[in-house]
Structure formats: structure tokens, C-alpha cells
């Protein structure tokens, strides 16, 4: 396919945490709110003059110092973040909000705090830890509301005078929804036999919406959507269509690796993906916006830390629904190595998707940056793709 007009632009945004759009927003006097877990309600960090940036550590290499502080047994995502923080790579942020989504991310941010890695010269800088629900129920929604008030809205207002009114939240949700609608509309082009966007391209676009101020990426996303309407798809059959499921995915090269084997990543069910990360938040006028935002995040959450059994089973059903909707031939469950929640989730998920739903499943762990393990991973994905092809040739079930 012909290259997307803005692909290189979006790719460049992913090369640095402190990318050009972050710098532009900062130069406009905006307040940068960093966060580290998908369960943090994004619109609440985009109120008034504030904008959110999901922390990541592109082009990670050595993690020796963070490994000293946290040992080699913590997941590379958290070690990469701490290393980058120690290097001073996150000094653009004006505050950080860190839910205890998992133990490792908690420890990562606590080390950032204890080592005084962020907020140098900014007396208003804050570290804010928050609890997030473990179950999808009304009690969980109530907790989320309270926590968001105490640990997101209060520090934003108290430190930077950010407008945290209902009207302000509604405005932020509107902007958030515009991004979601664009990403989901772009994602629709992954359906069908002749998709007009590759899984890699889609991931680059999606990831950019998490790491750059939203108001600065909307125009290029709109242009991209327009471009896709007339984009001529590849005149080839993909060897297998797969749903990629798992822990946080910072590395578009991993998707590229999968697609280089002839497979096609037709749906993304991982942290910071579009499903359900870019589901628009529907607001009504009968209830305050904060409650509705929190309810949306609690109900739509597909994080394995959600422990009630309806969610445990529901997550697998959700993957099955996606596989059907996007016409997948198989599922790839991935996990950043040493991630406990996804270690178990991929075991149970891969078993249930195979045994209960009948899909071929590849279950792998991976490094934070796939470049350190390309050969091994490619071999595993190739074998998986071939196994799906053989099944297809034999006319067997999915």
C-alpha cells in the first residue's frame, strides 16, 4: 500500500517521551500530567489547561541503574520507565498520577519519588498515588469517583488552579471522544479481507493519541481517516488474521514483526490499545460527568486485576467477540516478561480461548523492546502462522 501521509510524523512522535507536540503544548503554557496505567481516567487529566501524557521509554537500551533499584525480576516496562526518569527524561511533566494497578508500577513510581527524579525546579510538582477498583460493581464506581476527586482533581486544582467543574469535564470528554471516534473509525478499516491499514500503522496512530496532547493530533487523524477512505488495499491475502491480546504495548515493532511473517493484526486488545481503550464515553445530562466517566472506566476495563468472576470470564468472551467481529483466525496472547497479572491471564485466557472457543492460540512472553529478541519471537510467530495455514488447508475448524 502507499504510505500514509502522516505515518512518519506519528512515528516520530513515538521516538521520544518529550515529543514535539508535548514541547509545543508546554511552550503554550499548558500543564503536563503524566500517568502510567490505562485505568486512569484520561479525560480527567485533560481538563482546562492540562494535558495527559502516558509515560513510556522509547529506544530503551541499558536498564542497569533501575535494575539495581528494583532487581531484574521486575517487568522491563517499569524498569525502563525508572531508568528514563533517572536519566531526567520525564522532567517535562508537571505531576504524575499513579494508580496501584500492579505492584511493579507502584514500585516504579515510588522509586521515582524517592530518588527525586522528577519535578526539579517545579515546586508545584506532585506525585499522586491512587487506588483503583478491583471489581466491576457500584461499589467500585463509588471508589473510583472518590479516588479521582482526591487524587486527580484535587491536586490539579490545588497545585495548578485547573478548572475541575462539571462543564470542564464534559468539555474534556468531548475532545477525548473525538479522538476515540477517529481511532475507532480508522480501526474499522481493519475489517474485511482487504484491510486498508496495517496493524502496525494502526498501532502507531493509536499510541500517538496516548502520548501527545489530544488537541494537537486531531487534525492529522482526521486527514488520515479521510485518506483511508480512498486508500487502495494490498492486493494480497494475509496468511492469518490475529487478535493481539495482552499487557501494555509500547513497541510497534512487535506488531511489525508479526506482520512481517505474513500475518495481519486485525484487533488490538492490550493496555493502551484501542479496544476498549478508545471506546467513546457516552455522557447524559441526568448525572454528573465525573460519575459517568468513572463508571465508563470501571465497566469497560479489561485489565486482569479486575477480579470478580463475571470479569474473569467476561475478558475471554470479549476476546472471542473481537475475534468474530474482526474475522480473526487466531489469537496471540502476549505478556511483558515478569508481568504477574498477565502471566496468569494469558495462561487462563489462552487455555479458554483454545478449549472453550476453539481458536488456535499462541501464548508468548516478550521483552519491553522486541529488538532484543527478534529471532526467537519471529520463529514462534512463524510457526503459529504456519499451523493456522495448515489447519486452513486441511479444512479443519478454526
Amino acid at each position, binding site marked *: 500500500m502507499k504510505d500514509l501521509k502522516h505515518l512518519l510524523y506519528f512515528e516520530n512522535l513515538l521516538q521520544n517521551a518529550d515529543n514535539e507536540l508535548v514541547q509545543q503544548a508546554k511552550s503554550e503554557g499548558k500543564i503536563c500530567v503524566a500517568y502510567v496505567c490505562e485505568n486512569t481516567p484520561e479525560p480527567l487529566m485533560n481538563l482546562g489547561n492540562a494535558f495527559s501524557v502516558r509515560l513510556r521509554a522509547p529506544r530503551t537500551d541499558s536498564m542497569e541503574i533501575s535494575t*539495581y*533499584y*528494583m*532487581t531484574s*525480576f*521486575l517487568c522491563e516496562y*517499569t524498569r525502563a520507565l525508572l531508568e528514563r526518569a533517572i536519566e531526567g527524561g520525564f522532567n517535562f511533566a508537571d505531576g504524575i498520577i499513579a494508580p*496501584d494497578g*500492579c*505492584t*511493579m508500577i*507502584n*514500585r*516504579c513510581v*515510588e*522509586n521515582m519519588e*524517592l530518588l527525586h527524579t522528577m519535578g526539579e525546579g517545579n515546586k508545584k510538582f506532585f506525585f499522586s*498515588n*491512587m*487506588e483503583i*477498583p*478491583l*471489581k466491576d460493581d457500584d*461499589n*467500585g464506581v*463509588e*471508589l473510583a469517583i*472518590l*479516588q479521582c476527586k*482526591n487524587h486527580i482533581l484535587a491536586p490539579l486544582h490545588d497545585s495548578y488552579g485547573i478548572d475541575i467543574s462539571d462543564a470542564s469535564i464534559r468539555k474534556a470528554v468531548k475532545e477525548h471522544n473525538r479522538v476515540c471516534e477517529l481511532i475507532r473509525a480508522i480501526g474499522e478499516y481493519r475489517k474485511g479481507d482487504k484491510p486498508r491499514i496495517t496493524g502496525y500503522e494502526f498501532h502507531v496512530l493509536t499510541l500517538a493519541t496516548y502520548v501527545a496532547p489530544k488537541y494537537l493530533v486531531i487534525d492529522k487523524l482526521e486527514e488520515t481517516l479521510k485518506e483511508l477512505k480512498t486508500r487502495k488495499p494490498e492486493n494480497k491475502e494475509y496468511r492469518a488474521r490475529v487478535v493481539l491480546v495482552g499487557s501494555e504495548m509500547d513497541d510497534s515493532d512487535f506488531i511489525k514483526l508479526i506482520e512481517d511473517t505474513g500475518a495481519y493484526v486485525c484487533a488490538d486488545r492490550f493496555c493502551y490499545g484501542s479496544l476498549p481503550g478508545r471506546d467513546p464515553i457516552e455522557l447524559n445530562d441526568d448525572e454528573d460527568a465525573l460519575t459517568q466517566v468513572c463508571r465508563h472506566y470501571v465497566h469497560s476495563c479489561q485489565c*486482569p*486485576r479486575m*477480579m*470478580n*468472576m463475571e470479569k*474473569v*470470564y467476561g475478558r475471554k468472551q470479549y476476546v472471542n467477540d473481537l475475534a468474530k467481529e474482526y474475522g480473526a483466525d487466531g489469537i496471540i496472547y502476549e*505478556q511483558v*516478561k*515478569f508481568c*504477574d*497479572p498477565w*502471566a*496468569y*491471564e*494469558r*495462561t*487462563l485466557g*489462552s*487455555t*479458554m480461548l483454545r478449549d472453550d472457543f476453539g481458536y488456535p492460540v499462541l*501464548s508468548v*512472553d516478550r521483552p519491553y523492546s522486541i529488538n532484543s529478541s527478534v529471532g526467537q519471537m519471529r520463529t514462534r510467530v512463524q510457526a503459529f502462522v504456519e499451523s493456522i495455514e495448515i489447519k486452513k488447508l486441511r479444512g479443519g475448524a478454526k
Partner: protein
Amino acid sequence: MVVKAENYNRPGDKQLGVLFDGGKVRKRREWRGLKDTLYDYGRWLHIMSILAKFIAKPRNIKAMFRYRWMANYLATPHMIDKFTMGLRDEPLRIVHTSMDFVVYDVASTLDNIFRGDRRTGNDVEYSKKCVLSDENAMTAFMMGFPTVHAILREVPCMFVANLLTQYSSTHYLDVAQQAGIPGDVCPMPEAEAGTSIDDDFAVLGCCAVQVNTTCDGSLMGNGIIAKRLEREYGIPTFQLLAPMRHREEDVQKYAAEDMKKAIAFVEEHSGEKWDWTAYFESAKRVNDATRKRMAWLEINSTPYPQFVGAPFSLYNDTNYMGNCGRSKLFPPVDAKLLALAQQGYEAKRMMAPEYRHRCIVWGVQPQYCIDMLNWMVHCWGVVPLTDMLSMINTKMIAEEDTPENREQAYYDMAWLNENMIMRNRTHGGYKVLVSELWEFCDMMHADMVMLWEHMSCKALDGMHGQFEEQARERGIHLVWVCHDLCDPRVYTRQAIRNQFNDYMRTVMREEPLDPSIEILPDDNAW
């Protein structure tokens, strides 16, 4: 800091190494003097009588052949021997009083499990009045159900089994890893998941209540176990939550509301109603146990600690968490232990001729090398004053039955649930794990911290550098001792001890008190 015993001349000392024979130790002939040897022998007979009563029941014999982990219980007397090695006088009696009661409690749990187990005893009516609970779970939610039995099913299968014999978990770890769980997660929940995958748990109960107990691994392992319970055995499962940031005021209501749901769930499935009278009676016992624990710690903060080491930790686990005030049998044992500790303190009893260092044991202890704390006293004169798992709730809960206290009770139960052993330190932010350790060092007059580094415990590992730097700033000797919790294939017992030996020789430049036990040939022992 050094405390030396006066006129320390006891039979059998400095020769403890001869008790290990390189294989599965079957007899222990430690000469402790006439009085203490007779006492010890009497307690050995008591343990054997508990085991004999247990095995006399046909359903329990049947279970011995059905469940792989049951064979570990043959090593029960040896476990007690490990804890009493080198002890005399009050410390010997304290260990026997506490651990013999733990043996009785575990034997009762096993007996109850097999009574209701569909594969062995199959007492259907009894099973209908049983609620399954996790290994590392507070049973606070059962404090008001005096006629319903809380069955901590994983305790005898996994937790205790690994105290008894070091290789008890390896089969289940292999099973779990063959099913796809990586080898880098905590082996405790992994082995429990493996037991479930291997279908080697007893099957009973009207329902189960699982808790996101100690770590992400525990939380996630529950899903695998619950799927089998619900879908294969038709045992409905409730997931009781314990917030992560448990010291924060703004999570308490959340926890209390879920506690109400858990109780309603048990009521629905057991057909029994919550009994407030029983609850507040249990609450009184919880407070009594808390006061006793604080009194033991106070004695341990003096130059003559009495109730220390693994028995201190294991007894607290059993009483605080597994019992949680529900049984009337614990308070008399608590009282006896306190009396012994006070008596020992007044008589200035010591477990070794010299206490060179006062040590706080922090982190998660290896199940398969649980006797190391006793070894530290005898080999190096390092006395373990307390451990992380024993530094639990010190708050008194409401114990009078009033309308206000009935609402407060949900908050108290939730508080206890949040503050179950281990998780009250590994979750809730670095202050409860790191900062409070230094406060405990001051409180207990400790000059040394032995930090168990359970290599798969992300909560501990994540603070590795902070522990090291902050200990250095405070001039506290910090000894890292790495292990893999319940997998001796990763770190053998001697590999664990060697880390301590190396520190004592190279950093502290000291020689052992009893060189005969510096290296023990126990890699093939139980």
C-alpha cells in the same frame, strides 16, 4: 549490644551438627539434660498421639493415598525437632506450646477437610456448612458464623506441606509451568494453581471466598482455581477485595462495603444467618491476641527475647489470620505463652551462650528453610527479634455489641482483611515496607536486618535499592538472603545459609558460635 550468658554450661551444646545425617533424618537424640529431654520426649509423644488419632480414621487413610501432598505429613515430628534444636528451659517450652498447638490445628483442619471431601469422607451435610477460603486469607468474614466452618483448603496442601518437606511443591510448580504459567511468578500461588490444575485439592463446601491476598500473583492465581471450583464442581466463588493502599482513609468504605457483600454471599449459600453475638465474642479474642502479641514483642525488645523465630511467626499466622478470634482454644494458649515468656525473661534465659547481634527479619521467608532463624541463633549468635509477617495489626477493634459498633464491625473486618500478614507490608506504599522497618529497628534495639529476598516477590524486589541505601544511611547491617520461597531447586537450603555465613565472615569478620552447624548436609532431608 553483645549479651553473654552467665554460667552457660549446658549438655549437648556446640555439637548440634551431629543431628544431621545427610539423608532424611528419622531420629533426633539431642541430649538436653534430664528434665528438658523428658519434657521434649513427652511432647514428641503428644505429637505422635495427634497423628495417630488423625490416621485412625479410614477417610484420612483414604486421603493419604488420594492426595499426593499428604505424604509430607510423615515428617511432622521432624519439623518440630528443627524448631527446638538447641533449646532448653522456657524457650523450649514456648516452641512446643505454640507449635504443638499449630500441629493440632492443622490436623483438625485436615480432618475437617476430609470429612467433607467428596472423594474421601463425603459427609454431604457437613460439606454444606463449609466455606472454602484462601491460604493467605484473614477469616474475619467468618467471625459471625459460629456454625459454618471456614476451610483454609490451601494451608495443609501447600503452605504447611512445604514447611514439612522441602520438595513438596516442586511437582505442582512443574504442573503449573507445563500449563503455561511462567516460572518467574511467585511459586506460592503458582503451586496452588498447580495443585488445582492437577486436580489435587479436596473438593467440598457450599461456596468459596477468595481474596486478593498478598500479591498480584495471588490475585491472579485465584481465577484459575475459581474456574475449576465453579465450572467443574459447582462451588460458587466470591472474590473479596482488599484495597492496595490500605492505610488510606478513602479506601476503607470501599473495603467495608465488599465485606458486607461477602457476608451476604456466605449467608445465601450456607443458609446460616450472621450472628452478632458470636462476632463480638470473636472480636474480644482478636483484641486479646493483639495485646498478647504486643506483650511478646515488648519482651523481645529487651536483652532477653523469649518467643522468637519461625514459631513466633507461624503461631501468629495461625492465630491472627487462620483463626481470627473464632476459636476459644487460642486464648489459653496465648496466656500460657505469655507466662512462659515472662518467666524466661525474668530468669534471663538465653538460647545461645552469646547474643552478638539483635536482628529484625524482614521480607518473605522461605517455606522450605523455615528453621533458619533458630540456626542463626545457635550458629552465629544472631537473635531474630521479630519478622515482617508478625508485624501486623495493633489496632483494637470494636468489641461491644452496640448499633454503632455493628456498622463499625464491617470496617474492622475489612481492616483486618486488608492487614493480613505479608500484604500489610508488601502493599500500601513504601512507608509500610521500608520506612517502618527502621522504626521497628529503633523499637526493638536492633543493629541488624536480615532481609529475605524472595526473588519472585515483586513488591520486595522493587524496593531493593531503597533498602540498601537507607540501611547504609542508618548504619544498620543489612544482610541480603535470596531464596525462591518454596522451590529448593533454585536456592538450596545451604545456598541460603551460605549467604548469611559469607556476610558474617567477610563483612562482620566473625567466627561462628557453633561451627558444627555452619554447613549442614540437609539438601536431601525432609
